[in-house]
């Protein structure tokens, strides 16, 4: 039974101090969903006997079947906390003992990183789960980095401690060292990625209480504070003092009953003596079925077992006793409430990085103060499919104001520009309904004040994937989320039956809404392309498309990698093309952009919209551009923002300004569909060297200039040693040392190369980081598994673009064969057109 009502929930929503918005983040298989189960059980959503096995937040069938989380799932939970748990909080820091925890369980697999990003945006705190045995992994680092850049405070949950005790049979001291090392690792990451100045200097430290230990599967867990609280009464020492002694280099001498700082004969570490010893004793006793001992110890610890509970045997007995003694949900809850910020605290420092507009306007002030009376500001970070097919909840965080049913709001898409008078990205609509999301289900609610997470109903038509909702007329957008992955793997889908086409298109539209990362594109050939972050991501998307969104049988092509065209040298001559009427001549060259510049353009450090003087200075200083040409950048492309430049290097050309639009149009077209195989161009600088333009405007229209511009850029690319670029994954593999050879074999066969290899001191495990071209990554996971007997697990994440070896014009090289392959796929003539097709003579 759910032990709270909507009314109760709504009441607490007004108490800003008693709300915690948190995301559970971790590497795959570290136990997020399992731990979440305990929290759900505590709130009465599921029965406590199912906790740890039900994976209640895995609401989809395929999530349950595969045992991994795919979508971020939100749930609102309400708890009543005991007084002693809240004692460290100052009186003004809370308001009654009821707390709302708006929790989002996120996927751990790297392919679904975008879901984590979407989850983090609407939360203020994160519970980072780390497996005590495998420690910090690649995805732990990625998600932690994402959290910290969003200014989200983390707490640490060390899961699977039982494995250290039973499976690895480590001694108490070894366990301490292991835990200490992992905490140190996480702290290093925090110090790298966090911004001390705003969030305050903080470290994860068990003696403070922001680290918990436990086993999600068996439902037990604790913070040092829990033990300290227990012993404090016994020893009559202050709780906070004791907490410090139960972690770190504090040793207890049982004989003298004294504390010391140094180890030695008779001195036992506080953690070992007071935490690990009773814990392991109890666990072993319960597991070995020595009931008397269990009963005796429980009495010591002050827990009452019912006779029914005493009947249990072995594992069951252990779970029952441990749950009663050290409930993991309470440990996590304590950590969440005490060490993660309330919206009131968090929005004070997060508003700066979330809001695009001026930080002193009405909206910004209200957000900073978390003011329910202020103008409404909601950020919608993802669309959650509703129970009844076809519609979506817009999952959003109310940052300021109060949203209510029937309210008329401004719905602003990501490209909304408040300075434009008319903007097609703005919709003014009323909100028909809203709900509190409860995992798979939802509960209707009339209004929601700021600081909470809400599911808005009926506005899905006006938002694609994300957006800002406000009532403030001059509101700017909230900043777009930045994803750590990009869609580099694509497939073409077709419907088996042509009459299903409208359904397929409709399904693709829904699919692109339902996933923050996936891209669905119709291509000119009539094919529909679905792009995803990785093989698994695509697989899930396609399954959804077939069974949920379109509900028609579909045909899927083999995965296709998207490539980029580029050049590797400066054009060997200045190329010339004439317009169709021979009255205009254009001269141009192509050359590669300096290393690092395309990446800066991707990251938005160098943009088309920034001040040209500033951009020019940056380019001169960092990329040794000469100062005149750096000021004459006409545009970026493709889409006016891509990593290619058009520079005007001509001198005193008559009428050049008149044809600028058509020249730019030609450039945009070329950068979108390159000369080699109509892929996007990357990292090329085109210089318009000279132009001869007919004085009569009717002879220099778009019809004349655009094709001429295309031809001159094509020929300048072909004379600049054109090449292909391919996307490259960073692969991280964790495996035992013994099978390293097999891993290297597989990697080298697939053109991969290892960039880092680190061995774990205590375990025979080893971590490898390698670059692997996406092209070679299909089936990589399976091959690795079969080659290594299932002992190596790779995680692939898009890292960078890399030039494919070989000349694109040489068909025998790899680059050349890729060109041919793409041309064939696109139905272009197999052979590249000759240079003469584009190059004209004077």
């Amino acid at each position, binding site marked *: 039974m759910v032990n709270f009502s909507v009314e109760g929930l709504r009441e607490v929503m007004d108490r800003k101090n008693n709300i915690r918005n948190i995301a559970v983040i971790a590497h795959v298989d570290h136990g997020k969903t399992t731990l979440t189960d305990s929290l759900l059980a505590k709130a009465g959503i599921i029965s406590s006997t199912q906790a740890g096995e039900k994976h209640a937040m895995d609401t989809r069938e395929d999530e349950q079947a595969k045992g991994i989380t795919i979508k971020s799932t939100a749930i609102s939970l309400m708890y009543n906390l005991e007084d002693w748990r809240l004692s460290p909080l100052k009186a003004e820091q809370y308001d009654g003992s009821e707390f709302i925890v708006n929790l989002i369980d996120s996927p751990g697999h790297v392919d679904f990183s975008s879901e984590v990003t979407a989850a983090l945006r609407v939360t203020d705190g994160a519970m980072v789960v780390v497996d005590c045995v495998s420690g910090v992994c690649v995805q732990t680092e990625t998600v932690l980095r994402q959290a910290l850049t969003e200014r989200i405070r983390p707490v640490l949950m060390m899961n699977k401690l039982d494995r250290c005790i039973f499976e690895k049979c480590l001694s108490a001291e070894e366990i301490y060292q292991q835990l200490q090392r992992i905490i140190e690792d996480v702290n290093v990451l925090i110090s790298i990625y966090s911004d001390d100045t705003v969030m305050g200097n903080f470290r994860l430290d068990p003696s403070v209480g922001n680290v918990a230990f436990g086993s999600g599967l068996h439902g037990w867990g604790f913070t040092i504070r829990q033990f300290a609280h227990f012993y404090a009464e016994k020893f009559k020492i202050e709780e906070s003092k004791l907490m410090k002694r139960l972690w770190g280099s504090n040793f207890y001498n049982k004989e003298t009953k004294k504390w010391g700082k140094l180890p030695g004969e008779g001195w036992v570490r506080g953690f070992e003596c007071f935490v690990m010893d009773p814990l392991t004793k109890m666990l072993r006793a319960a597991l070995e079925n020595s009931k008397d001992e269990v009963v005796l110890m429980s009495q010591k610890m002050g827990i009452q077992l019912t006779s029914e509970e005493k009947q249990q045997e072995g594992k069951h007995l252990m779970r029952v006793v441990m749950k009663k003694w050290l409930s993991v949900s309470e440990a996590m809850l304590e950590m969440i409430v005490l060490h993660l910020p309330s919206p009131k605290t968090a929005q004070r420092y997060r508003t700066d990085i979330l809001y695009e507009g001026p930080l002193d306007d009405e909206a910004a002030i209200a957000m900073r103060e978390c003011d329910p009376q202020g103008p409404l500001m909601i950020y919608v970070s993802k669309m959650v499919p509703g129970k009844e097919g076809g519609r979506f909840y817009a999952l959003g965080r109310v940052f300021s104001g109060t949203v209510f049913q029937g309210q008329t709001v401004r719905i602003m898409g990501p490209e909304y520009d408040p300075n434009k008078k*008319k903007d097609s990205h703005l919709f*003014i609509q009323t909100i028909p309904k809203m709900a509190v999301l409860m995992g798979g289900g939802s509960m209707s609610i009339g209004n929601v004040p700021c600081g909470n997470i809400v599911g808005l109903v009926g506005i899905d038509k006006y938002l*694609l994937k994300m957006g800002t909702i406000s009532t403030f007329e001059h509101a700017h957008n909230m900043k777009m989320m930045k994803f750590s992955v990009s869609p580099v793997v694509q497939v073409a889908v077709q419907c088996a039956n042509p009459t299903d086409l*409208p359904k397929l298109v409709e399904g693709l539209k829904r699919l692109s809404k339902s996933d923050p990362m996936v891209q669905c594109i119709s291509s*000119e050939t*009539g094919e529909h392309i679905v792009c995803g972050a990785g093989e698994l991501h695509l697989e899930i998307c396609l399954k959804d498309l077939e069974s949920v969104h379109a509900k028609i049988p579909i045909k899927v092509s083999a995965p296709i990698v998207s490539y980029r065209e580029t050049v590797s040298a400066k054009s060997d001559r200045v190329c010339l093309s004439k317009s*169709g009427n021979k009255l205009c001549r254009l001269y141009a060259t192509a050359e590669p952009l300096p290393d690092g510049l395309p990446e800066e353009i991707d990251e938005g450090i160098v943009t088309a919209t920034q001040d040209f003087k500033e951009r020019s200075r940056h380019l001169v200083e960092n990329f040794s551009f000469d100062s005149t040409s750096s000021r004459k950048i006409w545009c970026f492309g493709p889409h006016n923002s891509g990593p290619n430049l058009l520079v005007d290097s001509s001198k005193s050309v008559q009428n050049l300004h008149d044809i600028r639009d058509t020249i730019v149009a030609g450039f945009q077209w070329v950068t979108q569909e390159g000369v080699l195989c109509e892929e996007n161009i990357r990292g090329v600088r085109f210089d318009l060297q000279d132009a001869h333009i007919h004085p009569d405007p009717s002879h220099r*229209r778009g*019809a004349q200039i655009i*094709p001429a511009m295309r031809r001159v850029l094509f020929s300048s690319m072909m004379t600049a040693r054109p090449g292909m670029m391919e996307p490259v994954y960073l692969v991280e593999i964790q495996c035992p040392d013994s099978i390293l050879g097999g891993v290297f074999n597989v990697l080298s066969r697939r053109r991969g190369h290892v960039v880092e290899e680190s061995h774990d001191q205590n375990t025979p495990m080893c971590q490898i980081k390698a670059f692997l071209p996406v092209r070679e990554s299909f089936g990589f996971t399976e091959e690795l598994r079969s080659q290594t007997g299932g002992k190596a697990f790779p995680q692939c994440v898009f890292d960078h673009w890399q030039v494919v070896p070989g000349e694109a014009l040489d068909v025998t090289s790899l680059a050349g064969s890729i060109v041919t392959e793409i041309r064939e796929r696109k139905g272009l003539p197999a052979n590249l057109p000759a240079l003469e097709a584009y190059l004209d003579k004077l």
Partner: protein
Amino acid sequence: MSVAIFSSKDEDCIERKVQVRNNERTPPSEVDSVYGIEGCVQWIAAGQYKRIALQFPNELMGDAVLVSEKIEALIEGKVFILGDTAYGSCCVDEVSAEHCVADCILHYGHACLSPTRRLPVLYVFGHSPFQTSHCVEGFRELFPNKDEKVIVMYDTVYYYAIEELKQLLESECTNLVVSELLLPDTRQDSSCQTEDSHSGESSIQTICKCGRRLKLSFGADVDSYSIFYVGDEGPTLTNMIMTFNKSKFYSYNPATKTSRKESLNVNRALMKRFYLIEKAKDAQIVGIVVGTLGVSNFADIINQLKKVIHLAGKKSYTFVVGKLNVAKLANFMEIDIFVYVACPENTLLDSSDFYKPVITPFEMEMACNKARTWAGEIYTDFTQLLPGAASYVEMCDDDCEESDVSLITGKLRHIGRASADDKVGAVVKRSELWTMAPQSKSAAEFLSDRSWKGLEQGVGETPVSLAIEGARGIAISYAGEGERNVALKGSPKIAIEYEVEKEENG
């Protein structure tokens, strides 16, 4: 997209070669039979026509003089030959005929059989060489099974031989349906107007599509038939394949004497067309290109298109450019998509070479009319879309603005016009909160966004002068031209200056 050459070279106009399939002229002895001179004369006499226009396609132009002479000798009246039709030669060129004030047209050669507007027309299809027995052999190869349901379609030029073929084929196939041509004199048949009306007591349903009439037994589904087409590949066949896109197509080409299964991937073609519909939904400014002046109702469909486009919140402009080519349309950069209003055989255009795609009226309707649902059909004949026709769908005018995701740009787009736009007259305080941001862009706005906006106007700097009368007439000889200096001839601009001069002097 291949590198489109948007503009043709100057010399192309002079050097352009007309594609002529058979250069050979019909031997004079055969002209009478091939061109059915006798029938023509009878028809003219029956209608008591006085001014007769003869329309020949380019490949038959060689015989034109001979035919016109023969006809003129046999009737009382004047005969004109219409050359270089403005649009497809399959359509009846009424406008050219009206130039010579003709009261009837004889259309020779291949025809698309689109209904005409004003003038009576006699189609003379001619006799292309056709060997019936060989065709039957080809048929036998393609349909070894005698029970197969087959519809026989044919190019109009083989019309003369069809009766013979029909008799031969009926012994080959038990479920044979031979299509009839929809000729002007039979068109009055009321059963043609609707698709499925079954004439009276008989259990036969008539289907009229592509200028053909099919008589199927009642209840039979046209999709279950295979179609056997006699003729060479070309727009006629493509049009049929798209229209009957659920049937299997086989063809026999009498010119090459080959028979085969048509392999045009309909599924792929439909996907391409569907992509264009999506593109049309994205478009803000639509160009309606008039590709026919002969097909009746062309003005109705243009008006309907304008209305539909407007209701969808887009702007439309109408263009008349004669024969379509890439260069002509590339001059209108502000247009996002073109709709080509033409006869069914010319309307399906492979627009991949064009700067902006060219689509059919049906596709534009699909994109704008929310009430229209799509089940895989393609209507190449725009008359089907008009009120009263079988596939007319009322545009729902509910003023509601919709938005959905464009799969081409990956962004949200609006469909339907902004509600506040049209209610300017109503006395409503236009609160900022209730108005939508209108998104429709016109060509004028496009122009204002351009960095170059045309020649310097210099308003206020140049002295204002009164308008004066310039040269009149057509460029080849302006009215009163003989009196002027020969050197100034031809250029109206100079002519104006000349007049200015004259006025100052005088």
